[in-house]
């Protein structure tokens, strides 16, 4: 039997191919967007909410270009200020997550809690929430898989003197943690990820085949755990009870477990790696702050939050007006798409001084890096725990860490969604 650590010790070319921000962006139909933040700051100066898609407002829209969560042809407004974005996330019955039916995301990825609103959303999320609390992240997730994963990866890296930390650490850790946490077998982790990610240009046949692979792999785990429970998330979901509107309760169906597993494994393996990469990028670019952090590890939690404020990997999420609504003075008609721009909201000068500056010493204030409201990132505490554990290991084990002067300087790349470094070439020792 191959162990989780065995899989991580092997070189695996598929990881570098699968986790590549530029390729991921181009596969989505988007163009690569250079630093979007100066333009976002200009837009925010004009109004808290503007008519137009985010791509239109940034002057990026053109025939043939596809941007994630954009619906050309439907009236669209973009919320730019922290107040507008936070409020729209919180008022989820008005600025509705049913948008994912309109954008086609539910047809493509499946019908999970991400597209539900109100009581229907609560009854799906409530039984899952306890598995992702701060206590669960620091306790179960760390002991079960985060600590071992980081230790295994850093032990391999530290022997080398140099590495691309983006591929060898950032890419490998989260997909491994979330997949192992759910109960996928070690050798299935990367094949499952490959089946879960589909380029926009994939044929209908390929899509069907990939979806069937994903569902078969999950069904096998669910059936095995129904026979014999293990210490994993799928076993816990089998035993969870969903409370219904009438006060009665029932367990999840297999299909509900499958859809929510797909969502969480896709999100867990697909965001934290980029956000950890952004955090390491910001620290390597600001060596004085990196030194301060090494000297005082109590700053680590806020450094992670500050990096997520400064540059959240996803710059926007969509909502749809369920009724005529007003948002920070803007009249939004029923049916309109609303782009909630995390990128501009997190650098709102009415909330943060010198907002473009990455500064781990600034007072912590909630940003919308993990959204807000009922759909706030379910996995954020697990994600933060992964980042804290990985950064501690980097600081403990890779002495004198710095950019590799022989390699091209790393940069942050991507589109309007799913941004991150192109690489993190470092030397140490």
């Amino acid at each position, binding site marked *: 039997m191959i162990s989780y650590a065995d899989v991580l010790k092997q070189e695996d070319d598929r990881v570098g191919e699968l986790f590549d921000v530029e390729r991921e962006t181009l596969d989505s139909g988007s163009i690569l967007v250079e630093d979007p933040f100066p333009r976002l700051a200009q837009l925010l100066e004009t109004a808290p909410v503007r008519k137009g898609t985010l791509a239109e407002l940034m002057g990026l829209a053109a025939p043939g270009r596809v941007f994630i969560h954009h619906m050309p042809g439907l009236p669209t407004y973009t919320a730019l200020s*922290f107040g507008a974005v*936070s*409020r729209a996330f*919180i008022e989820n019955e008005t600025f509705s997550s049913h948008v994912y039916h309109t954008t086609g995301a539910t047809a493509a990825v499946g019908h999970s809690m991400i597209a539900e609103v109100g009581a229907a959303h609560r009854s799906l999320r409530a039984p899952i929430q306890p598995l992702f609390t701060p206590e669960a992240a620091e306790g179960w997730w760390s002991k079960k898989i985060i600590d071992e994963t980081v230790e295994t990866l850093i032990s391999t890296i530290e022997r080398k003197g140099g590495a691309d930390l983006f591929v060898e650490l950032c890419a490998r850790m989260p997909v491994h943690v979330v997949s192992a946490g759910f109960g996928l077998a070690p050798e299935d982790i990367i094949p499952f990820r490959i089946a879960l990610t589909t380029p926009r240009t994939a044929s209908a046949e390929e899509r069907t085949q990939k979806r069937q692979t994903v569902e078969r792999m999950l069904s096998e785990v669910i059936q095995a755990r129904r026979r014999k429970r293990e210490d994993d998330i799928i076993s816990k979901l089998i035993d969870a009870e969903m409370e219904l509107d009438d006060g009665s309760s029932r367990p999840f169906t297999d299909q509900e477990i499958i859809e929510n597993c797909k969502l969480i494994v896709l999100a867990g393996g697909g965001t934290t790696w980029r956000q950890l990469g952004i955090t390491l990028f910001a620290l390597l670019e600001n060596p004085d702050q990196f030194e301060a952090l090494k000297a005082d590890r109590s700053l680590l939690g806020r450094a992670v939050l500050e990096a997520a404020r400064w540059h959240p990997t996803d710059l926007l999420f969509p909502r749809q007006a369920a009724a005529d609504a007003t948002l920070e003075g803007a009249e939004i008609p029923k049916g309109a798409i609303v782009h909630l721009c995390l990128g501009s909201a997190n650098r709102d000068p009415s909330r943060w001084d010198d907002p473009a500056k990455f500064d781990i010493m600034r007072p912590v204030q*909630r940003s919308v890096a*993990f959204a*807000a*409201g*009922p759909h*706030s990132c379910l996995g954020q505490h697990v994600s933060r725990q992964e980042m804290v554990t990985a950064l501690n290991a980097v600081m403990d084990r890779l002495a004198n860490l710095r950019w590799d002067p022989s390699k091209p300087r790393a940069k942050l790349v991507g589109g309007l969604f799913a941004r991150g470094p192109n690489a993190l070439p470092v030397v140490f020792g």
Partner: protein
Amino acid sequence: MKIRVSADLCCGAQRCVAVAPDVFAIRDGFNALVGAAEDHVVPAPLEASAVRGARACPERAIQILDDDAG
């Protein structure tokens, strides 16, 4: 019993409102997301409800303060 809601931790998930609507409500304004004022005093008949609301918070933003501490 008193409860305290941290405005920095509260993300407006509204789980507290869902399980304990007799204690919690969303206050207007993006920066003050929870109805309970700081160190809100909970009347005895609502204490169990307040504890349920605090336990439901995904961010652990609601603190139950002992009477002694208050």
